[in-house]
């Protein structure tokens, strides 16, 4: 093999394909991530709805570079009061995905639970007025239409009532155990 580049390339290709099979092809057959949860269904926005347009505004302005949509079953997340732990099926209709990799700002998986529309709008136009010390840039350059759509999208990010009840029960149980 030390004299045959084609042999090196063939083995390199086979090893690469093993990795693809394990981490890309096999997951395609896993139901856990491929069937939508009830909360995931809520994110199946009709085409050209305010939420769908707002999602595009979110992506175009790079919100996903600072905010994750990814709640883990870990103290770092549960103690931040982010809402229910997210499941594979919650993202069934999230294309492209907005899982994110960095929390320069807080997680937004269920941000629709936390504030009302007026707060969201005010926060987008002048982040420091609602959150003193925030390092979020102002999005006052967006048109009114874009702001409306973006707020509609953010408000849509919430779990179903049932999921929320389950989550609150879980938290109370955890609290009792903790004492």
């Amino acid at each position, binding site marked *: 093999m*030390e*004299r*045959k*580049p084609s042999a*090196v*390339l063939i*083995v*390199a*290709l086979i*090893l*690469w394909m*093993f*990795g*693809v099979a394990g*981490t*890309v092809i*096999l*997951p*395609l057959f*896993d139901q*856990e*991530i*491929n069937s939508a949860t009830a909360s995931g269904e809520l994110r199946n926005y009709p085409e050209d709805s305010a939420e769908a347009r707002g999602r595009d505004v979110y*992506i175009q*302005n*790079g*919100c*996903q*570079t*600072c905010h*994750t949509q*990814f709640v883990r079953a*870990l*103290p*770092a*997340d549960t*103690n*931040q009061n982010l809402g229910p732990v997210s*499941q*594979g099926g919650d*993202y*069934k209709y*999230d*294309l*492209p*995905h*907005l*899982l*994110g*990799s*960095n*929390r320069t*700002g807080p997680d937004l998986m269920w941000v629709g639970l936390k504030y009302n529309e007026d707060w969201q709008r005010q926060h987008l136009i002048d*982040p420091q007025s609602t959150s003193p*010390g*925030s*390092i979020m*840039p*102002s999005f006052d*350059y967006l048109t009114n239409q874009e702001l409306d759509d973006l707020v509609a999208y953010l408000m849509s990010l919430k779990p179903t009532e049932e999921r929320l009840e389950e989550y609150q029960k879980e938290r109370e149980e955890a609290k009792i155990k903790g004492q």
Partner: protein
Amino acid sequence: MFTDEKWSSSKNWFIAAVFWIIIGMSMGLLTATKQIWPELLNNRWTTYGHVRSAHVMLVIYAWLSMAYVGSMFYMIPKLAKTKVYSEKLGNFALVFYNIVILEGFFALLFGQTSVIEYGEFPLWVDVQLLVAIGLVAYNLFKTVGQRTEKMLYVSLWYFLGSLLWLPLTWIVGNFPAQWIPSGVQQGLMGWFLGHNAIGLWMTTVGVGQIYYLLPKLTGRPLYSHQLSMIGFWAIATFYVWNGPHHLMNGPIPSWISKAGVIPSIVLLIPVWAVLANFWGTMKGSWSQTRTSVPLRFTMAGTIFYLFACLQGPLQALPSVSSVIKFTHWTVGHAHMGPFGAFSFTSFAAIYYILPKIVGREMFSKRAMEAHFWFSTVGFLVFAFSLWIAGVVQGFAWIEGVPFLQTVLMMEPYVQGRAIGGTMMYVAQFFLAWNMYKTIKLAKLEKKQQAQQQAATA
């Protein structure tokens, strides 16, 4: 423009690379500064999200990748004892590649993105970039094909592998989202690209560069051929499985998590094999780092590579990940490989190769020294700020400190990062100026020589 002058591809790719490191790092510095003054240059085009994406894509696919291709256009023909298959095609690919990068850069500033980290260019740019990479790979494969040296030195293995893996990985990662059945599945494919752009392109070409440079710079043979084979096949086997660890503790089934985390930890094997080989080769030559800046850059690169590769498997442990994931630590770690390890080896490659192809020493040794020290000290300030910040931030979240308060706590570290980053940025001007002077003087000297010859003839 599409000259077939000997070594012109290598030289021109290097020149373009250094142009882009200045643009790419200025985007990085702006990103860092925006975290201190959020309103700085904030508008529809240069808002934080756009600038950050542009920074990541430019330093990886413009600066580092072009420096890599420049190195390979010199190292591959040298190792194969032949000439570049087609210098003309090499120069054509360069012009094409630069046009594509420019398109991608403006697409990102105009808010077009496919979201996938390390693959953020929109689809219409991705396709063109694939063609450009394909042209480079074709040219270099053909070069190996016409070799007169029968033994394949280990650097060639790495280069061949990387030139095969990059386009394939690029296809998987940039697969159109609409064709993929779920958001998480796309996340897995995106991180397949995200991790393997690092593992099967940045790492493998960079390690190949070091294997080439070390024996040349020290004048000593490679410590162990056997060990270099173990290192190569272990990287090829395990690295490609690393994508899923980016979604660990998250919405993926536990079997995928394990399939990603275990290979991440096993990576300690190739890292050990590679570094034992590098440092074995260096035995008795360490004192040369005092006088040779390229050698010093290479060795600093290997040390940063060790750091990066100790952090990597450690971070792949679910318990460690549960503290530092999503924090500033990640940003510090993400700069370790691309800047600390492999930009350093690329600097060394430029300083070694450029004098050979233009026929004159680098213009200023002092500028090289300044480039080294500003890069190194700047990077240490930058990286340590972010690592400390990440750990502080991670534990604050666990304790339930309100998010906004953790942002305020980060202020001094974010400033430290910006100061370190400024030094890293300034360093690159010494490189650019030195290269410009060297190439200009080399041209002048050649002209004078020709005149003298004409006069005496």
